[in-house]
């Protein structure tokens, strides 16, 4: 079994092509398309499993996960503000990015586990949905304080009706309603091609990540260090939580991956509109230029080992 998951190699290809300024780009429409398929596929898969789940088990887990989504940015903020000497808005925005989650990273982790035949709770995508939003709210509060001018309704619309949640949640519902049998007809596209679609998606992500390096060059060492240490800390935290919540090794690894991952779709969009004075090049340089590559190259295997370890110790 190769050291790197094959799909990750596509990310490296894209990254290399981007850094070499190769004349290579997937049309935006294709990138959109791949994102839609990935989000739906993840949702559908989760929904099918959901059918066979008791809410009694999940509810406490869901509450805890949401609380974690609130806690993470609160931890990250002071570090960014004082250790990183960043503007308030920038610190708040970056904190929100790391409190939320990255669908791409999650997909790679799923591919990683599937490839090693590690089982996990099929309903984890529910956490994915739950973790999108809270960090954004916290981030805005951190940037603005309790400001009656904040257009919360707009923020809520922006996020709840944003592409990621609509497709993930919609996929969950459809998968849940159709059930394992009903979903079969569409498995050809959403499940059998999942890895291939993910590979192309990562190719594009590599190109995008490369275009963020400029931001790094300008804003120096701190973001790099933060972009690596933060996921490690958060990942460890998430792994511990997963174990406490009684998740399997696979589920623990996935929750660790979620907490360790930083958003680059929902959060940047929301921050751009709600905290415009925050500089997007900073947050994207960190989340796309550093943390995303780190997680899919180094982090995920690490979180997996960590999960195994905790479960061995914790028994």
């Amino acid at each position, binding site marked *: 079994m190769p050291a790197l998951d094959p799909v990750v190699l596509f990310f490296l290809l894209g990254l290399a092509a981007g850094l070499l300024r190769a004349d290579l780009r997937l049309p935006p429409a294709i990138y959109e398309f791949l994102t839609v398929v990935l989000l739906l596929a993840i949702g559908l898969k989760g929904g099918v499993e959901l059918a066979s789940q008791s809410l009694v088990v999940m509810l406490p887990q869901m509450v805890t996960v949401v609380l974690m989504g609130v806690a993470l940015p609160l931890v990250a903020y002071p570090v960014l503000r004082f250790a990183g000497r960043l503007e308030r808005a920038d610190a708040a925005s970056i904190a929100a990015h790391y409190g939320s989650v990255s669908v791409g990273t999650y997909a790679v982790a799923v591919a990683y586990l599937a490839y090693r035949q590690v089982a996990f709770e099929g309903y984890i995508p529910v956490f994915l949905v739950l973790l999108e939003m809270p960090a954004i709210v916290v981030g805005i509060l951190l940037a603005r304080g309790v400001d009656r001018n904040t257009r919360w309704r707009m923020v809520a619309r922006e996020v709840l009706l944003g592409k990621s949640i609509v497709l993930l949640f919609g996929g969950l519902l459809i998968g849940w309603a159709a059930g394992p049998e009903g979903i079969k007809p569409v498995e050809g596209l959403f499940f059998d091609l999942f890895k291939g679609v993910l590979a192309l998606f990562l190719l594009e992500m590599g190109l995008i990540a490369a275009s963020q390096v400029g931001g790094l060059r300008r804003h120096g060492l701190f973001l790099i260090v933060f972009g690596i240490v933060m996921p490690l800390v958060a990942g460890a935290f998430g792994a511990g939580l997963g174990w406490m919540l009684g998740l399997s090794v696979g589920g623990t690894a996935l929750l660790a991956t979620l907490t360790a991952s930083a958003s680059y779709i929902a959060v940047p969009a929301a921050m*751009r*509109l709600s905290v415009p004075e925050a500089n997007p090049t900073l947050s994207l340089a960190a989340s796309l230029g550093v943390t995303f590559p780190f997680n899919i190259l180094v982090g995920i295997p690490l979180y997996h080992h960590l999960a195994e370890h905790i479960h061995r110790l914790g028994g």
Partner: protein
Amino acid sequence: MPLEHRKLLTIVTEAALEHELAREIERLGAHGYTITDARGKGGRGIRNAGWELSANIRIEVACTVDVAHAIAAALKARFYDDYAMILFLGDIEVLRPEKF
């Protein structure tokens, strides 16, 4: 042919602002707008439209001088500091003045 003078206001900015600007433009009295997808470079660096957050839009509004100035002033006040945005006015002639 009877032609009347109007202004063409052109805005190039971040795609993320599309909905917000559309609302603003109508609120300030314009009767319509045209949007095309764009990419480009300016003070805030290259925006190559590789993905959502680096995409630009180009908005055109044909309207009266007053409306054009009102929109320009409003956008300057609200967006110039925080967003990649430029804006310029040109003179045009239209056939149906009542439309603009």
